[in-house]
């Protein structure tokens, strides 16, 4: 273990420029390195899981990062490949969670119990945000599962076509086709929603 690696503080630029050192430090158990990796990737992972309709995306993201820690010794590559690898783990954990939920359906919380908790912020902002989320959910629901995977990884995960292909275990050409068809379907749905609204 190299103490210098453990003590080193990593900023965004440092991580991009010297990702190998970040990985070495993370393998060595550096808190700074892991914090940086987490902050860099967690929003995208949680966003992807949320976009996929996960019931508890943050919890699932925690599982994803624990698996990243466990399997980091098997990984070899640069930052781009690391992002693909992390999102592929997230995708697999999502599928596992769906299978689990299929076996043990979770009852939704009673609205009265939630209302007891009360609001935590500006209700107007929350309402607007809820409208936006609802609109996004309605739009995403028209997509096939594969199209949804691809578009969410591209938009939310900020992955390239090749990275998405790696994460989903598909060919880049297939990812492009799914992306194109998904976008076309979204356009059609947007025009429909525009007419009805």
């Amino acid at each position, binding site marked *: 273990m190299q103490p210098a690696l453990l003590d080193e503080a990593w900023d965004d630029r440092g991580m991009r420029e010297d990702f190998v050192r970040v990985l070495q430090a993370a393998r060595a158990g550096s808190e700074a390195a892991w914090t940086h990796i987490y902050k860099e990737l967690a929003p995208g992972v949680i966003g992807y899981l949320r976009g996929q309709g996960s019931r508890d995306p943050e919890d699932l993201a925690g599982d994803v990062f624990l698996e990243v820690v466990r399997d980091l010794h098997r*990984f070899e590559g640069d930052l781009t490949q690391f992002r693909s690898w992390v999102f592929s783990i997230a995708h697999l954990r999502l599928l596992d969670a769906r299978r689990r939920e299929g076996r043990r359906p979770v009852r939704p919380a009673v609205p009265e119990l939630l209302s007891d908790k009360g609001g935590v912020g500006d209700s107007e902002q929350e309402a607007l945000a809820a409208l936006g989320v609802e609109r996004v959910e309605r739009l995403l629901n028209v997509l096939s599962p594969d199209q949804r995977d691809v578009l969410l990884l591209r938009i*939310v995960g900020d992955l390239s076509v090749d990275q998405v292909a790696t994460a989903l275990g598909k060919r880049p050409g297939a990812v492009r086709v799914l992306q194109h068809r998904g976008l076309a379907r979204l356009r059609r749905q947007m025009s429909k929603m525009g007419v009805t609204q």
Partner: protein
Amino acid sequence: MSDHNAYEDEMRLRRPHDSDDAEFSSLAEDIRSACLGAPGPHVQSRHIRAILEQARRVPEVPVASHAGLRRSKPLRTLAKLGAAAAALAVLTGSLAVAGVDLPILAGRPPSDPRANGGAAESDGDDEVRSETAARVQSAIQSSLPMLRTGGITGCEFRAAVSAAARGEAPDTSACTEAADGEDDVLDPKGSETARNVHAALEENLPRLHAGEISGCEFGAMVSAAARGVEPDTSECPMTNTRTEAESPPPKEAKQKSPAVTEGPPPGSGSKPSPNTKGAKSTKEKAGGKGKGAAGNAAAGGVPENKASKGNAEASQGQAKGPGKGAQPGGAPGGKGKEK
């Protein structure tokens, strides 16, 4: 099915004048803002604590050097192909070490009996025999035209062929001394092959002159005698027809000859060619001189596969001009004109 440039990176949406794309760009932003969101500070600290705990539990394991290989499909395929090629090489090598001779058909002519799955002459005796036969054949090819044109006597012809069978230089001095007693000119000390060839020549040359056998059959018999195998004249063009239609070869001759009944057909790959008629007509026109005789001899008496070549030569007789033709009974025609 797809628009022009459909697969250009659609996610960038850098066309501000396109209202659809502008709208879609705002949708992408909506999706991002709806889904993306940093975890709360409590969640974040909880996650990082768990991560560090897990990192402490995980022993430091050296990075797997084959991780890339496991991930990459083409690399895996290449590795499998390499392993298969190595296994094949090892298998071939072990077969070679074990002495198994794998058939290599490429590069052999189709008439090669080995290429056709025929009997392969692989032992040393056969090679020696085929060398002797080749020498005898070339001697016949070179001497027979001269014999037919009267350039050399029968004694000289036999001496040349006999010498070729022995592998020595021809000595025709005895022929000039004993012009009448041709039978005595050959070296009595000759090898068994030479004696066989001599006997075959003695037996068959008069028949050839008398027109009882064709040049092809004559060549087959002499060549077979040189090789020490039984002649097979079935491959001679028109032999069967002539034998059935005209006069069969005398039984006595067949009995006397070393063997007429069995043995591998010389030039087993060849078939009677209809073109030999053309050669015959050419021969008749050309007075029976020239290369055709050699081709004829080759057609009948060539060891292994040269008969087909002989046929080809015979069929080319028209273009080449002179030709004895591959016809049984060609000799009488040719000789008749000569005489």
